[in-house]
């Protein structure tokens, strides 16, 4: 089993994801410069957060045209797991691998804080170990994370179980107070129809060790553990 974390110019959570995969989870992981990325040797790929190409034009827009993304598309079609975190989520949307759009936060500012998420489906490569309804503490840090899609599309996504996480309060309620950026239906994460491609705004790699969590839990690691289990089964 071998994992790749793709490094675009301006990625800045690349080392963090590699650290968690290698040092916390203990799985073989390569940090690969986007120009050198070849998909066929990897079982799964992660697009890390950051500001690829300085977020010039639009977040993720330029990186989505990198030749590396053609490779990522092949992996996705193959059914192998693909995870996009924060800027990686933006890139997956820009590349057409995930539905919807990510717009500037409704407060128009960058927001960095710990939020509570509710798992809406265990049917993805990154949530197969997370029971539906389980609450997770994971931090967000972004300026353009307001998920949007049309009512018709959202209807389809619900039918296909494509909504993966929602922002909720401590009791698990979906409400506007728990919504940090104005996302439609408090959506924090979505997947493709097959469930092997997942994008999310929160940073699971920052919540994968107890020492980093103000709640003294390590919920983020569940996503990476799920990925490993998904590949094993």
């Amino acid at each position, binding site marked *: 089993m071998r994992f790749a974390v793709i490094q675009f*110019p*301006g990625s*800045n*959570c690349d*080392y*963090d994801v590699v*650290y*968690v995969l290698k040092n916390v989870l203990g799985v073989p992981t390569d940090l690969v*410069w986007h*120009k050198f990325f070849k998909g066929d040797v990897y079982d799964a790929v992660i697009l890390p*957060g*950051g*500001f690829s*190409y*300085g*977020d*010039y034009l639009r977040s993720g827009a330029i990186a989505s045209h990198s030749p590396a993304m053609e490779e990522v598309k092949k992996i996705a079609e193959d059914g192998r797991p693909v995870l996009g975190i924060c800027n990686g989520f933006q890139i997956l949307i820009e590349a057409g691998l995930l539905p919807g759009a990510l717009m500037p936060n409704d*407060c128009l*500012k*960058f*927001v*960095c*804080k710990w939020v509570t998420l509710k798992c809406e489906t265990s049917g993805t490569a990154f949530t197969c170990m997370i029971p539906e309804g389980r609450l997770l503490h994971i*931090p967000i*840090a972004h*300026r353009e994370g307001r998920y949007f899609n049309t009512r018709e599309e959202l209807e389809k996504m619900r039918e296909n179980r494509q909504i993966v996480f929602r922002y909720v309060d401590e009791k698990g309620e979906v409400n506007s107070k728990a919504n940090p950026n104005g996302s439609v239906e408090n959506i924090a994460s979505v997947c493709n129809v097959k469930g092997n491609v997942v994008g999310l705004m929160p*940073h699971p*790699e*920052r919540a*994968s*060790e107890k*020492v*980093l969590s*103000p709640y003294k839990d390590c919920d983020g690691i569940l996503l990476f553990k799920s990925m490993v289990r998904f590949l094993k089964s």
Partner: protein
Amino acid sequence: MGRTKAIPVKVNLSKKEIRVIRRLMGREPTLEEWGMFDIMWSEHCSYKSSRPILKKLPTSSPRVVVGPGYDSGIVDVGDGYVVAFKVESHNHPSAIEPYNGAATGIGGIVRDVLAIGARPILLIDPLRFGRLESSRTKWLFRYVVKGIGDYGNCIGVPTVAGEVEFDESFETNCLVNVACYGVAKKDKIFLARFDNPGDILILIGGSTGRDGIHGVTFASKTIGEKSEEDRPAVQIGDPFTKKLLIETVLEILETGYVHGIKDLGGGGLTCATSEMAAKGGTGVEIELDKVHVREEGMTPYELLLSESQERMLLAVDPKGVDEVKKILEKYEIPYSIIGRVTDTGLLVAKFNGKVVASIPPKYLAETPVVRRKAKKPSYLRKVLKVKKPREPKNLSETVYRLLEAPNIACKEWVYRQYDHEVGVRTVLKPGEADAAVLRILETGRGIAVKADCNSRHSYLDPFNGSAGALAEAVRNVVCVGGEPLAYTDCCNFGNPENPEVFWQFKRGVEGLAYMSRALGVPCVGGNVSFYNEDENTRVAVKPSIVVVMLGLVENLEWVTTMAFKGYGEPIVLVGKTYPELGGSEYYHEIHGLTGGKPPKADGKKEKATVKTVMEAIRNGFVTSAHDCSKGGLAIALALMAIKGKMGVKVDLSKVPSSKPIRMDELLFSESYARIVLTAPNLDSAKKILKIAGKNGAPANIIGETVDDDRFTLMMGLKKTVECSVSLMEKVWRETIPKAMGEEAE
């Protein structure tokens, strides 16, 4: 005057300095050379006024690897690793163009840390603005914070701590200080020196343009109406290029072919080449026409002085040039090979083959000292002797009013905009404790970091104010479970040519030196920013020496926050309270008073307090810790209650204090050397008292946490203060968002 020629370009040099330059050179300098002297002999680059004073600071300890004089101070944190850190001011550019001024401040400080071969891991930004009600303050505050956030967030270096003070003296001249810390292997440190003649000079990163020309001479002037015209002297930041530059430089340094490296900041190419050659005792030859530029027709004068951002200069072993080029090409970082290190002892700059400047580098780097006059300011007589105001009838109301005071109010509005998590190192985050704690991934230990300054105390007494700032920074790292190792300081003052300002500076540094010795914590670097003064009103900023602290947390299990943890836990106060309300938030907010007797800093008392708390934490006797600072004991307790979402019951008659003392003095005096602790049980609390007794620190159990919303401070049987914790939290949270036209969370 017949033999002295007119200088062909505008310079900011004194007549005496011009004479010295002519004598040193033994000929009439060229236009380019005048420009180079002008920039290198500016206050900002040369520290010509401050150097003799700064020499008073102790700078060594077994932990110090590199002290002042290089790009960053370097401190041994054990296990073969060092932490490099540095603070810088970006006051003048931020006062004119807050967004880019603040952003490029980050850019510069990150390069300073990168230049010693360290990966930047955190940023701290101490900020000072005018009154929060003023629209100018709101504009500056909003865009400075945005500038720091946009830049720091993009380069992936978390901003984990800082402080914000509002005071009318910063109305025109806001203070924007930025500090960066980095980690490196002890045996892989790089210094800004040219030691090997024959090394090839590669200029990498951003292209050179006309932006920022004479930024440093601009920073060595006061701010007036005309400063708006100086806007082109403010650089424009490019965090995307900076992020690539960080990765590129670290990869290049890994090759082992780099012998010297320096960032290009104030003074541009002139400063970098002259300082590196002067330190190495070598020479250097550069070809200015080889520099990659972003504008056409740049003159050699402009190329020598441009302060365009995101540039670094490397001295590379000729054998390694190809390998270095390969890495630059991988990251698509622009570069140019601009010259070489020589053994001529001369800095030679050529343009299209013609020599435009030829100066021994040390003439530029070793500026003659300017001895300034110091005179005790006349305002002190008036302000130190103000009459004590009458005590308010309703002290509960006073507690609420202090909690909503801008200097005490919650700063979440600021730190929500900063990515404080990137890097997976942040153990204690902004707002959780007295200092931030980050783990060092490579060693498993932690560092505690914090910046402190109290400009109102310093205004009344710069000696005790600065000593107090250092003591506070030490207390803060101790409260989170750390041990202070070293600090760097950022001195912000008015015009040093004014003897009263220079006196403030001198006394401030002397106070710092005193406390530094008393606590055994050395200074490893710093920055001096003068001329923070309004040209029209002649109002200078309150003297502000910001202390930026590095502490080591040997064991992450010792990490302690300020929130009360459990009901019924005994509250212990370490340290004695004195009637010291001068410069307090209480005087300012409640009585509109500037003056009175400010707290006295006492090294012995500080040492007793921090030793006690360090020992208590390490023995597991402490569940929460918070030092008493702005707002005194009452506010320290209030913040611990707010964070822990629980009440307290305290008997003020148990507070160790000098006698006689008034109730308002007991509650709001900002006496130093005090820390509030909670213990898990009475037994542990008594053990803390024992440790305090051994160390000679006055201490007592003053009350306990309670299972309700009530914040009750009694004097014997009489209720002195009774507040609701949830209401306290509400007013404390609302101030800043409300002022900025937003709702509190």
